[in-house]
């Protein structure tokens, strides 16, 4: 047998091994440059009352989730009920970051699809989104008691991510004192 004929086979083995490895990784979990760093400071008006502001202070003292959403985001609609389920099961408050949206649209969206958020901060210009490294909507950040970002999900949270990652991480952070 002439040896060159086995080269394509070897290439295939390499390729399949690589793709198989790729399957075990979920591309939607991007490591954030902000991982294990303090959450970037913000001071934004709330959706309910433009005169009241919510700041990074709100993240201190308890484990919390920050969910970036917008009324124009299709994936956010499906994610809304999942976010609600996470708060229900873990008792962790969710701060909504309403990203590049219009107030009336956002308010209407919450009445239609439910409001899982303890408070919604309005980032109409997207400036805070830039500080947080938001690439698209939705994104979800886990912030610990000290206000440090510990985990990030890009895209809508899947059931698997919720059960296998988010809820265990939240419970662990909660029990750590």
């Amino acid at each position, binding site marked *: *047998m*002439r040896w060159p*004929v*086995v080269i*394509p*086979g070897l290439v*295939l*083995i390499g*390729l*399949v091994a*690589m*793709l*198989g*490895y*790729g*399957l075990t*990784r*979920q*591309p*939607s979990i*991007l*490591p954030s440059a902000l991982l294990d760093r303090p959450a970037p400071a913000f001071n934004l008006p709330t959706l309910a009352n433009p005169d009241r502001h919510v700041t990074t202070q709100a993240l201190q003292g308890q484990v919390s989730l920050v969910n970036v959403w917008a*009324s*124009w985001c*299709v994936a956010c*609609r499906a994610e809304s009920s999942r976010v609600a389920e996470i708060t229900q099961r873990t008792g962790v408050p969710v701060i909504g970051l309403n990203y590049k949206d219009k107030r009336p649209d956002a308010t209407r*969206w919450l009445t239609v699809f439910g409001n899982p958020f303890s408070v919604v901060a309005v980032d109409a210009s997207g400036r805070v989104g830039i500080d947080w490294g938001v690439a698209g909507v939705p994104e979800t950040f886990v912030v610990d008691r000290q206000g440090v970002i510990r985990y990030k999900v890009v895209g809508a949270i899947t059931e698997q991510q919720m059960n296998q990652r988010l809820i265990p991480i939240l419970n662990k952070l909660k029990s750590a004192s």
Partner: protein
Amino acid sequence: MIPELGHLALVLALMMALVQSLWPLYGLAAGRPIYMRLAAPAALGQFLMLGVAFAALAWAFYVNDFSVVYVADNSNTNLPWFYRLGAVWGAHEGSLLLWMTELAAWSLAVVLASRSLPREVSSCVLAVMGLVSVGFLVFTLATSNPFTRQFPAPGQGRDLNPLLQDPGLVFHPPMLYMGYVGFSVAFAFAITALITGRVDSAWTRWTRPWTLAAWVFLTIGITLGSWWAYNELGWGGWWFWDPVENASFMPWLVGTALIHSLAVTEKRGIFQSWTVLLAITAFALSLLGTFLVRSGVLISVHAFATDPARGVYILGLLAGVVGGSLLLYAWRAPRFATGTEPVAVLSREGLLLLNNIFLVVAAAAVLIGTLYPILADGLGLGRLSVGPPYFNKVFLPLTAPLVLLVGGAATMAWKRTRPVVLTSRLWLPAILAVLVGVGLPLFTVGTHAVVAVAGCALGSWAILAAFEDIVRRTRGRRLKLPRQIIGMTLAHVGVGVFVIGVSLVSGFGGERDIRMRPGQSLTIAGHNVTFNGITAQQGPNYVAQVGTFTLRQGDRVVSRIHPAKRRYDDSDAVMTESGIDRDVFGDIYVSLGDSLEDGAWSVRVYNRPFVRWIWAGGFLAALGGLLALSDKRYWRRRRRRHEPHDPAAAARGHARREPAV
């Protein structure tokens, strides 16, 4: 009831596919030719069953049967009927059904067109295609049944992804899949050649038209996709090096190489095992594309909703089909008789060998760029994505020499060409090409960019050299050229037109991103663009804000264009409809951004000179392929088949074989 029938038809199609594949293979192995006869009727049965399944799903969409989960997820009563039809293949399950239906259609075409083939060849080809079909049918039934029901049925569906609500979607996927799936025929012929151990000129003559047909579909599919992206995505771009675009481009590159190497194998009886390997690779890359789109290993605008179980299955299928073929290849390919004559550099086969090398290396470069994110992750280099800078940098030096070769295609003779023949025939096209390369941008676009001028000259070279050949062939005598020659010429002209388009649009294109209030205007590429205002319009399933822009050249009003932003009722998604002033020598492309305060809008205006030439080139190449496909030499066999009892005609058919290109 109808969806259950569809499901049942899928199960029956699987049974038929099993018969189509296992029986003939057993017959071949056990030396019982009678079993091989089953392949053809089984293929027909499989096609009918898949047709029933497909029709059942289309019907469910037509009558808005939202108890079918797939319909509820991808349709809506407000969706116009032609988009409901397009929605049949708008997501994973349905597009898989389309994939299999088209595979069955290709099998049927093989049955109809190959009655003149030796039975063991046609049965073996059908058996291999049947095996591929079995793999996909099991996949569909196990993980992606499009007929799954839900009760209670929702009153309204979730609507089709608004990005896909464009006439382009109705045609783009079926064309593209016809190309992908069509390579399964060449693949099946390659496997048959490995099994029977025969790669002779008869084999290549059977394989060539099938490869060409698949290539034509793929070319049209990719061109339509690019056209759709330009119109629908609102970025003014025509190609994004997105993983899924690359997935369709790789089989195209290898398929192009295959068409050319088949010509060499037919004419000179060399490169056999290389040709067989290319046929396997082209289909393997089609399968890889299927994997990339449906497994979620890469992030892409095209990716379907993903599920890891599906990824594992398709990867297994890919490994099984391609691994098995390559094992067979490693075992059998060394037995092919190979020509011992060395290949001269200055000969048509030498040129085609170079063409093959460039095309395959280009495909490899695209493959590496596409998969590099996975590799980098594995090597601990972090998560990253590979973008246009890589591809443009790598691709340009690979394609430029290729286009240079295209110009020499017609002049180069088989076996050996004297350099003096080349220079005496090609000096004129070369000089003209340089003149056009400099002149065309000078008179149309005005400014200068060196790379674009070089590209324009290169494209003109391909066109002019192709015409030189036609002029020389028709001078004085023989006005009637074989269609194959015309087809080749047209395809090469298409390459030239495409290269000119790409060069000029990337060299001289520009864009402005500005804030405009009604009444304001800007100047781009000699055009004055005035923003007249915005009006609201109600569509069937969306509300649109439609802008009006007036385009003037001097005092003359060239056109009014209407870019829009649509908000779809059911998904709340906002889509940008670009407004385009189309012209042979360039487009002015306006896309609406966001509404700002006091009536102002952010507006992006693009100047896209010669962008139309890109698609024109693609369609010309496809047309060339079609013409070559209609050449008498492929159809004479068919006529012979109709009169199988006339030995004289059969003999004539052999004796008068056209000289191959």
